[in-house]
C-alpha cells in the first residue's frame, strides 16, 4: 500500500521516535495491541543496532516500513558490526521463574523479536546489514 522510510543518528533518542512512529503507522492496519508489539520488536532491533552494531562508534539507522493490507514488512539497515550468526539463530529464553539467580537481566531482545514477528531474516552485504522483520495481518483491523 505504501512505503515509508525513517532514518536518523543511531541513538536511544532516535529509537524512541522511531518506535512511536512505527506504532502509529502499524495501528492503521493492525489492532492497537498488535501495533504496540511491533513497536517493541522494532525497538529491540534498533537498540541492538545502537548497542552492538555501533557500540562506541557513531552511525545511522534507517528503516523501510512497508504497510500492506496483508502484512507489514520492516527492514532495518545499519553499517556497523555484523551480528554473529549464532546470535540471530538462538533466540530462546529459558529460565526457572522460581530461581532468583537464574533470572535474565538482558539477552531478551532477540527472543522478543522472534516471538512477536512471523518472519525474520538478516543479511550483510558490503558492510551494510539488513534485518527484515515481517508480520502477517489477520482479518479485520479492530482496535
Amino acid at each position, binding site marked *: 500500500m505504501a512505503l515509508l522510510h525513517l532514518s536518523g543518528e543511531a541513538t536511544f533518542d532516535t529509537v524512541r521516535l522511531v518506535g512511536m512512529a512505527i506504532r502509529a503507522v502499524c495501528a492503521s492496519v493492525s489492532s492497537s*495491541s498488535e501495533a*504496540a508489539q511491533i513497536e*517493541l520488536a522494532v*525497538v529491540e532491533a534498533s537498540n541492538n543496532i545502537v548497542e552492538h552494531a555501533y557500540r562506541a562508534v557513531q552511525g545511522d539507522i534507517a528503516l523501510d516500513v512497508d504497510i500492506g493490507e496483508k502484512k507489514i514488512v520492516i527492514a532495518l539497515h545499519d553499517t556497523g558490526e555484523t551480528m554473529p550468526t549464532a546470535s540471530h539463530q538462538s533466540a530462546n*529464553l529459558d529460565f526457572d*521463574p522460581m530461581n*532468583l539467580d537464574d533470572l535474565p537481566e538482558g539477552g531478551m531482545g532477540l527472543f*522478543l523479536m522472534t516471538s512477536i514477528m512471523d518472519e525474520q531474516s538478516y543479511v550483510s552485504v558490503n558492510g551494510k546489514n539488513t534485518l527484515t522483520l515481517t508480520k502477517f495481518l489477520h482479518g479485520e483491523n479492530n482496535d
Partner: protein
Amino acid sequence: MATITTTKAANVMVVTVTEKRLDAKIAVSFKDEMASLINAGETTVVLDLSNVGFVDSSGLGAIVTSLKLIGRKGDLLVAGVKDDVMTMFTLTRMDRVFQMFPTTDDALNSLIAK
C-alpha cells in the same frame, strides 16, 4: 533528572516511575536510582508502573536487577501495569516472577494481609 518518585507507607517504599517510556534511554538511571534505595535498606518495594506506556527489554532487565538486589531479604511488587506493557511481562514469562497488582493500593493491601 530522576526517573522515579517515592513515598513511604509504613515500612513499604512505593516507587512511581514518572517516565512514559522505561526503555534503553533511561534504564541505567532507573537501575541506579533503584539500587540506591535498596542499598539504603528499602527492601519492601511496590513499583508503580501506571504512568508507563512502553517497556523494552532494558527496562524490564532493570526491574529484574532490582529484584535480584533485594534478593530474599524483601519483596518487589509490581502495580498498575497497562495492557500493552503486560504483554512484555507475559511474552518473557516475567509475569510468573513478579507479584503483579492492578493498583498500588492492591499491592499494599496484599502486604498488610501477610
